[in-house]
């Protein structure tokens, strides 16, 4: 008969209706699947009792697809068809990928996302990831004895919408119903926050195989709020391996290596790194295909000094996250360590010194994200007793906004807003009788559209003819719990509506996000000037248009002298508009404005006279 699990009070499921849900940590180096069984989150191991599944997929020439340890075993024999760290390629193009020259793959630079040519044809990173997810899904279904209702899959906090979409696509391809995408540090906080029931502001320091994330989280009364995030998507344990690999190349004075030897030496470098966590020195020995024998000894001192810059690279983003959260080190109650790379003693030390406290590491740093995801999946699948649900807040990594006249960005949802979020703002028409408006959705921190990332463009048509500024177009930005954006524009008087769901073109790298954030600080003054210039230009052009239109229709209200005076000021304004001195534009606009005040008053009088002509006084009383 079936094997039963203990449920929460009152939550026993009807037969054949178990709501089996899992949490999946789809990692750069290793992936895990976990579930809540008998009230406890546990990682589900494979038949051999191994909890981790190496995130490695091999497309063999014989048509077989191997995943995990089996693929890892073939890594040095068949590097071209054995895909490691595929997460680095999710939603990326070739130019986004670091160390591309050392990756032994046959890249195909497809538009949007790169692809890999293997013995079984061209594969996209989405397909490769789905192979990993399929294995985890099968493992979970065997272990739980039934079909899954869904899964929570974790992604780095810094994944942009393209990368999130790619992850969702991979899950769908693997036959998994995604309950939610969850930021990895948030998942870790769930695992720690619930198990330890600790309140306060915490930092989650996540140094995984390929990504570094730092998140500032507020935990109180069971509510998690991510106050700020930062990180470096191109920094992780792989980079430490790379340093050791380069060191070994230099020490052993090796000639350029064949792909399989590159793999072999990488594996040896990783082993040495792991050994140094517990020992003072580690051997690196390997026999290469050309017959060369590598026999080196790596000491802790040498390892620390060659990776010092990598450790230091974690501190900058950490400082920025604190600043975004408006906190100092003293405001942080504790630091949660996540990711296998945080086992390295020099990383523990650096984090401890920066935060001036001992980092929390009592949960296995490799498993903590999967465990938290499993707890979240359990809640989302409806397996928790009432009243024990908890709210989960995540944040938007970069501001979302609209392009307005003159290429300026109007920020609708600011960065670090909690999601799900919905904000609306009204826009109006710029010209008389304007029948359509085009919208341009952008993401970024800069003031000018050209410095931000373009997410989508769409048009609202069918606006009835109205004077400039009379139309009321309400634009709503809605970000769902997965961080995906939907934008709706609606003209209020007619109800015409149009909307777009942003499945952004794959391709903004996290390094770009990092750069965009840095730029926004460094270019703050320039941006302010650019914004002032654009604003004055738009205003100046609007004024010039209005004066020109007035002259065309009511020139007879002016004397010849007045006409030439206004004409001269108009000409001056036009000249300043071509330049880039925003103060000059403002002065010229103001001069023209003053000179036409009287003209405007006369036009209004004339307009009133025209309207009143033929009306009887009696008609005006009511």
């Amino acid at each position, binding site marked *: 008969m079936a094997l039963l699990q203990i449920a929460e009070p009152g939550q026993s499921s009807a*037969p054949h209706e178990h709501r089996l849900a899992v949490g999946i940590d789809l990692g750069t180096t290793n992936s895990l699947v976990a579930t809540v069984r008998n*009230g406890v989150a546990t990682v589900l191991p494979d038949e051999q009792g191994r909890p981790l599944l190496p995130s490695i997929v091999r497309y063999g020439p014989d048509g077989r697809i191997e995943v995990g340890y089996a693929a890892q075993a073939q890594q040095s024999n068949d590097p071209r068809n054995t895909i490691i760290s595929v997460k680095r390629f999710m939603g990326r193009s070739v130019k986004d990928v670091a160390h591309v020259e050392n990756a032994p793959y046959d890249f195909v630079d497809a538009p949007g996302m790169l692809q890999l040519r293997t013995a079984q044809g061209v594969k996209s990173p989405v397909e490769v990831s789905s192979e990993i997810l399929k294995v985890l899904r099968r493992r979970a279904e065997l272990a739980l004895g039934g079909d899954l209702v869904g899964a929570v899959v974790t992604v780095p906090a810094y994944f942009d919408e393209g990368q999130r979409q790619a992850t969702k696509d991979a899950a769908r391809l693997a036959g998994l119903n995604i309950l939610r995408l969850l930021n990895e540090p948030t998942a870790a906080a769930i695992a720690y926050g619930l198990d330890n029931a600790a309140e306060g502001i915490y930092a989650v320091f996540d140094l995984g195989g390929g990504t570094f994330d730092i998140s500032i989280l507020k935990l109180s009364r069971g509510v998690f709020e991510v106050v700020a995030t930062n990180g470096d998507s191109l920094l992780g344990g792989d980079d430490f391996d790379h340093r050791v690999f380069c060191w070994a190349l230099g020490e052993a004075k090796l000639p350029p290596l064949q792909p399989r030897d590159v793999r072999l030496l990488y594996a040896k470098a990783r082993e040495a790194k792991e050994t140094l966590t517990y020992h003072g020195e580690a051997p690196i020995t390997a026999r290469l295909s050309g017959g060369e024998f590598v026999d080196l000894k790596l000491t802790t001192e040498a390892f620390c000094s060659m990776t010092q810059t990598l450790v230091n690279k974690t501190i900058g983003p950490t400082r920025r996250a604190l600043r975004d959260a408006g906190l100092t080190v003293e405001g942080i109650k504790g630091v949660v360590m996540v990711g296998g790379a945080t086992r390295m003693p020099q990383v523990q030390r650096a984090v401890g010194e920066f935060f001036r406290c001992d980092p929390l590491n009592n949960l296995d740093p490799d498993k903590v994200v999967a465990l938290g995801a499993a707890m979240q999946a359990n809640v989302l699948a409806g397996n928790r007793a009432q009243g024990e649900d908890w709210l989960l807040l995540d944040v938007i990594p970069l501001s979302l906004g609209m392009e307005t006249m003159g290429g300026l960005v109007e920020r609708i949802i600011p960065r670090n807003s909690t999601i799900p979020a919905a904000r609306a703002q009204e826009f109006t028409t710029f010209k008389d009788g304007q029948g359509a408006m085009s919208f341009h959705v952008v993401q970024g921190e800069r003031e000018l559209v050209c410095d931000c990332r373009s997410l989508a463009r769409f048009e609202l048509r069918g606006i009835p003819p109205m004077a400039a500024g009379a139309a009321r177009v309400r634009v709503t930005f809605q970000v769902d719990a997965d961080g995906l954006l939907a934008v709706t524009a609606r003209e209020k008087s007619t109800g015409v509506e149009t909307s777009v769901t942003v499945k952004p073109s794959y391709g903004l790298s996290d390094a770009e996000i990092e750069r965009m954030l840095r730029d926004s600080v460094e270019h703050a003054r320039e941006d302010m000037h650019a914004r002032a210039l654009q604003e004055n230009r738009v205003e100046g052009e609007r004024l010039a248009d209005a004066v020109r239109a007035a002259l065309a229709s009511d020139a007879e209200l002016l004397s010849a002298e007045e006409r030439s005076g206004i004409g001269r000021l108009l000409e001056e304004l036009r000249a300043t508009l071509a330049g880039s001195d925003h103060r000059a534009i403002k002065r010229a606009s103001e001069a023209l404005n003053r000179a036409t005040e009287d003209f405007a008053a006369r036009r209004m009088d004339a307009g009133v006279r025209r309207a009143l002509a033929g009306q009887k006084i009696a008609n005006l009383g009511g």
Partner: protein
Amino acid sequence: MAVTLTEKAANHVQGFLAKRGKGVALRVGVRTSGCSGMAYKLEFADSVTPEDLQFESHGVKVVVDPRSLPYVDGTELDYTREGLNEGFRFNNPNVKDACGCGESFNV
């Protein structure tokens, strides 16, 4: 009149209760549902009601509501592993027939 746990099952229940951080007993019962009439209830108990029948097995308190007892009396709960799957198995002498998977049964 009793519902018992094997030592292995008791150890697992104790472990789960400890990790869960609260709960005073294991609640065993039945309800009418499923393809063969009855289904087991296996839950953590945060409280014990006055009419609950209480049993003790290898240090674990088991509570059963009186209406359920006739259907599960004499049951021994074991904890077993089948391939990757693991969980509690009901060895219930009252069962006459069960559906294919054994999740629901008839007495």
